[in-house]
């Protein structure tokens, strides 16, 4: 029994250490030294899929929390509109679409990164946004109306830092130069739009097809042909 407790305790300590090292310290290092950080991320395999997934989950949690717990002064949402599933789909969908978009562009532009690396990079980029949203929840419950500029600043800073990380991430992962990176990011945005459009089109066509088949089914059943 005692042994077991010890083992469990050790494991917990181990996990906390891992969490601190990988989820808090290393991304902060990347943020402070983006080129060096992503170099380690890619070359020395310091980026981990498990950590990426943790970031994704954290982002979902923080997003749902901010929907419900952001202070009333900045929160226009009504709790009855909260749909956790759609929030999950929203975050996961965006990450996947950006990943696929970036991958499809960079394979054409001689990018060196593979799909897994791109996915990890995109997830790591959420790091500042998670912090900003989390801090935003706290701030929005403390600040008064005329001090809300601070809240806006924090959220904007989070967004900016995420974009900043993504920029350097693309440079390092794909071993690009500056101009090529900018072009790739523009192309990625275009690719994302195309993917969304294709999805929409597919969805619409599928719906029509379903409608068509359903009408035929109805016609047959109502006419007693079967």
């Amino acid at each position, binding site marked *: 029994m005692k042994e077991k407790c010890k083992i469990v305790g050790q494991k917990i300590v181990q996990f906390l250490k891992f969490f601190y090292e990988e989820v808090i310290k290393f991304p902060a290092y990347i943020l402070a030294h983006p080129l060096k950080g992503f170099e380690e991320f890619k070359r020395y395999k310091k980026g981990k899929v498990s950590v990426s997934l943790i970031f994704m989950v954290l982002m979902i949690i923080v997003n749902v929390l901010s929907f419900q717990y952001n202070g*009333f*002064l900045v929160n226009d949402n*009504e709790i009855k509109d909260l749909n956790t599933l759609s929030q999950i789909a929203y975050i996961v969908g965006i990450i996947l679409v950006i990943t696929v978009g970036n991958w499809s562009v960079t394979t054409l532009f001689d990018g060196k990164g593979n799909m897994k690396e791109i996915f990890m990079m995109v997830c790591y980029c959420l790091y500042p946004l998670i912090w900003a949203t989390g801090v935003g929840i706290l701030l929005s419950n*403390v600040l*008064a*109306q*005329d001090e809300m500029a601070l809240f806006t600043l924090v959220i904007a800073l989070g967004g900016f830092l995420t974009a900043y990380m993504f920029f350097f991430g693309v440079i390092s992962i794909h071993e690009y130069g500056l101009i090529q990176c900018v072009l790739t990011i523009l192309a990625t945005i275009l690719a994302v739009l195309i993917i969304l459009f294709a999805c929409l089109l597919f969805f619409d066509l599928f719906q029509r097809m379903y409608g068509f088949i359903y009408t035929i089914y109805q016609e047959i059943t109502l006419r007693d042909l079967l």
Partner: protein
Amino acid sequence: MKNKIKICICILVALLTITGTQVQAATGYTYDHRGDAIYSTEGLTVNETPYLASTLGLNPDDLNSPSDLFVYKDDEGTLIYLLDDSKDTLFVFNDQFQLLQRVSHLRYNPNELYATDPSLVQTKTSNESSKPTGLIGDADVLNLNTPSGIHRAVNPNTKEDLIYICDKGNHQIVVFKADSYQEENPETKEGSYQVYQVVSAPLEQLGKNTFDPKEVLSDSAGRIYVIADKINDGIMQFSKEGQFNSYTGVNYVTLSAWDIFWRNFATQAQREKMTTLYNTSFTDMVYKDHMLYTTSYAISVTKEVNDGIMIKKINPSGKDVLRRNGYNAPKGDNKYIKTDDGKGTYGPSKLESVTVNEYGVYTVVDSNRGRLFTYDNEGNLLYISGERGDLIDKISNPVAVQYLGEDLLVLDKNRRAIIKFEPTKIGSLINRAVEQEYNGRTTREEPKVNTRTKTWWIGKEDTKIAFSEQEFYEQDGTWWIGDTNTGIEAEELAAVDYWEQVVKLNANYEYAYIGIGKMYQNRGEYKQAMKYFKLGADRYYYGKAFKQYRDAKIRKYFGPVVITVAVLIVGGVVFSAVRRKKLGIKREEETGIGDE
């Protein structure tokens, strides 16, 4: 087991009978702070059969096509003026709807006119259905022709008590003194007035027979305002002498950026195919406290509809100063089907008429869906009442609304009836609350408690009442709480008292929560105030209450927290220093041993 179930059922039934008693108001709807339609209570309801020709003491064909209604109130009482534009008659009733006067012609004497050119005065020349009009010449009777608007006002400067009628078929406005009435037939109450002034078409602006006045009123300086058919330049303003001054309060067409963009690229041929855009003309106006309240249809620009200025409050210099501080801007229905989808009514509300009461509450009537929208002075939507339908008490083709005290009269052209709407219980409470807010009595002091006798009171100590526990009720036109013997009169109540009752009747009534929140704010109970402002979705007041609440918390806990932190820091430093000293000695000893 069975017994237990039986007891449970008994309790349930008892609960249902207890809780299910209070609901009596008809279910209507309103718009919440996000602009969505939600269930609510109607503020006005029809309690008696509408007034038809028979109940008004008229012949059935006297009221073929009623065109306007006006309620005039002075010290002597209330008079109701009703126009019919098929029989060209003016009917006057008292507030009990008893016929007092029936005027189908006016006495005319060219020598007794004020500021009028007799050579322009016209009259109906025969009673044929086409109603031809012609110059009056030297006749001594002026026959009205399709009268469509009436107004009565006392000029505060000259003390002249004048009645204005839009004599639409004769293309002029006829003015006569209210005291010039002479009864000619006591049986049928027929009589006539003496023409005092005739305002003819402004010949510099319009042709002689293109002036079709529809609504008229006069302001406190005696100036005459006219809404005329097919005039898109605004309200026509005439001097007291009948000289045209200017147009005022134009409903300018505003194009969206998108429309301007497309119109830039359109070819001449395409542009000709597009609908020509006119400024919309007004449908009705009413005068109150130097302001003109007006209604007009929405401006439709292809698919974009500009419904923001359908209700206007025009100040003497012609600017729209309507307050739009509510959750949604006043415009009738807030959400509607924009284009014809073949399933029924679509498009914005068609506001036909407006009326204002003494404390700034105004009601507009929508002929598209037959609804009455009531707003307060600040632009808050108070309640929506009425509906379109084929029953006699439903609205079909409203042409005029007028307040008769607290009641609302709707003149319906299709029904040929005056429909009288009375406030429901909640409607009456809301009106009282708004009235008190208008008068500046939003909140009152907290009720004091006599701990010995366990009674509550406000104001003078001798009017003791059991306070917030009691229901409100109405008796002899005033509101009371408690009972008449020990209760206090409505005069002493503030808006918040009524809001509390409103919320009891309808928890969906969001605006009332703001009123309650203000009371707690004034009393310094910021936490409660925040709760109510949140319910009322008022971020401005919530922000204020929140700041007070937070600052109070900071003030309260700043000292202790700082002291605790300081103590902790000092303690930590001391502790670590002591520990280091001990450890240091030990380590020295240990290392000493280890070195050996």
